[in-house]
């Protein structure tokens, strides 16, 4: 597979994939990895509150006397569940809307794209904030809100691709042979758009994870679950004045770790599937000069004078 080979040859993509794999494994095997059960009630004595790291608690304890490392390990679950599910929802809606709007166009297509335009100009975080604040805090509510609001960019991307693919020879030929619309969309157009959708989906997972952690940090996380954003909310409200960095920094770096891994993968995929990014005349001209004159290519293009 050419696609896979290109990916493996990109250091960014490989590093990102390895980083993501670590988080996925931690989330799956959380009960075996975590030294304590973060959902168990802890009888904490005053000196346990925000106790600094020691041999039994490698990352110290939080404001309720719980083991921070265990909280951190279990927190991976919420981030990944929200990220993957919400992104999957967004992709499903966005792809369907994009295919319909691009292939059929017409009044429905137009209406759907206007709806996308509308959602695009409403500020995301404030909108999620008011909906969750009124609707109530819960894992599935958060996933639904992030997923339903996140499809607009995908819809635009898919639609613009479909608009050009629709007029290509092989599609026209299939239509002339009497293929139905559904068959043309599913067998001929969708496979062409799929690589772009996958690249977009990976980036969208990181967007969803960041959205969930922002909501949780602002006090709107699911109160029954351990999540990194909520750890930061508690740490920021209660631990920052006591310099309890062991409670404050790990969840933040965990969010950076997982979202960076996805951004690295997504960016690599994007570069592979978007061939237009590969030509560059200033860059090529330099190579050409080197070929003609026989001199080794220089780094960068020198400014005259």
């Amino acid at each position, binding site marked *: 597979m050419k696609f896979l080979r290109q990916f493996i040859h990109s250091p960014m993509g490989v590093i990102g994939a390895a980083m993501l794999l670590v988080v996925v494994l931690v989330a799956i095997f959380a009960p075996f990895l975590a030294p304590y059960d973060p959902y168990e009630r802890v009888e904490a004595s005053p000196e346990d509150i925000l106790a600094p790291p020691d041999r039994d608690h490698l990352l110290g304890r939080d404001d309720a006397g719980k083991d921070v490392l265990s909280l951190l390990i279990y927190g991976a679950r919420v981030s990944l569940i929200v990220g993957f599910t919400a992104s999957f929802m967004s992709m499903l809606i966005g792809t369907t809307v994009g295919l319909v709007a691009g292939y059929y166009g017409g009044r429905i297509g137009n209406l759907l794209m206007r709806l996308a335009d*509308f959602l695009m100009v409403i500020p995301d975080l404030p909108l999620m904030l008011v909906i969750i*604040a*009124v*609707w109530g805090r819960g894992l599935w509510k958060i996933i639904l809100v992030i997923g339903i609001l996140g499809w607009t960019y995908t819809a635009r991307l898919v639609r613009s691709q479909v608009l050009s693919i629709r007029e290509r020879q092989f599609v026209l030929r299939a239509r002339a042979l009497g293929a139905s619309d559904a068959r043309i969309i599913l067998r001929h157009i969708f496979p062409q758009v799929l690589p772009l959708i996958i690249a977009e989906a990976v980036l969208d997972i990181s967007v969803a994870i960041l959205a969930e952690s922002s909501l949780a940090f602002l006090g709107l996380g699911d109160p029954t679950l351990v999540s990194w954003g909520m750890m930061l909310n508690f740490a920021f409200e209660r631990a920052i004045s006591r310099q309890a960095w062991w409670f404050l920094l790990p969840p933040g770096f965990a969010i950076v770790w997982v979202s*960076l891994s996805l951004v*690295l993968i997504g960016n690599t995929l994007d570069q592979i599937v978007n061939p237009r990014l590969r030509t560059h005349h*200033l860059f090529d001209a330099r190579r050409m000069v080197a070929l003609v004159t026989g001199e080794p290519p220089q780094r*960068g293009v020198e400014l005259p004078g």
Partner: protein
Amino acid sequence: MERGNYILRKTAFAVVTLLAVIVFNFFLFRVLPGDPVKLIIHSPRMTREAQERIRVQFGLDKPVWVDTDRLRQGDILGALDTQFTAYVVNLFRGNLGISFTTRQDVARLLAERVWRTVVLLLGGEAVAILLGMALGLIAAWRRGTRLDAAILLWGLFSWALPTFFLGIILLILARGHLPVGGMATPGLRPQDGLSYWLDVAKHLILPTITMAIVYTGEYILIMRSGVMEVLAEDYILTAKAKGLSTFRVLRDHALKNAMLPMVTVIALTFGYTVGGAIQVETVFSWPGIGRLMYEAVQKRDYPVLQGSFLLLAVSVILANFLADLLYSVLDPRVRAE
């Protein structure tokens, strides 16, 4: 002629969007469980007269949306005598309700705080845009070099960085050197003149830097790919063949053409930037609209939440509308579209 059409279309879209936000705002807070007006009416702290006043003001004895009985009788004006109409009328009178917790007028509360958020947004955006464009241009031009890789990595990294966490890190690092919370040192007042405003400026440094760092990354990535696409165009090869210097190719051709998508992107990401301001204000207790929303969430102060959301949404819609108008000036092709 075409330009008039374009402006007309964009105006119509902005108006429809504004109306939709108003309708949404009404229904979100009125239909979902936890109806704020009902909550305040059932609050034991309210006197009977105050409850009655609110009941009349919000038209709670009337139907929510359309009075179907009167509509059936053909009384169209009468059918519109509903809670929704009362809400819209109140809105245009500048009446956004009263805060649950402080009993302050929400419209006045917002007016008092909005400029603080505007200052933060303008400062952060200005730094981010200038820095992002410069670095993105350099990265695209030196594509494939180590410098490009470093700039690109920074761009990706800052994209993956949650705004609030960067704020917290800067807060920890700068504590003791710079003010890390609030708008001014307690004790100083606007009457103190220059020393007060200098103090405010100092308090703005960390929030602005946080905003700038996070949003620079986004602009770098967009500028870089924009310039790269432009550099792949044939007219760049033509310009090069004409013997133009690299500097002039970059300045006159690449920069100008890559500016167009930047305008759209700045406007489209303005919504994200506003979301970032909420986080930054929360971390640094900067008393703007964002901090207000954070406190309103903690206290479930729905009228304040509703008013803040409306203000932010309207601002972003208007900003996008202005960007569309600007775009038609910058790009003559839009007019012919």
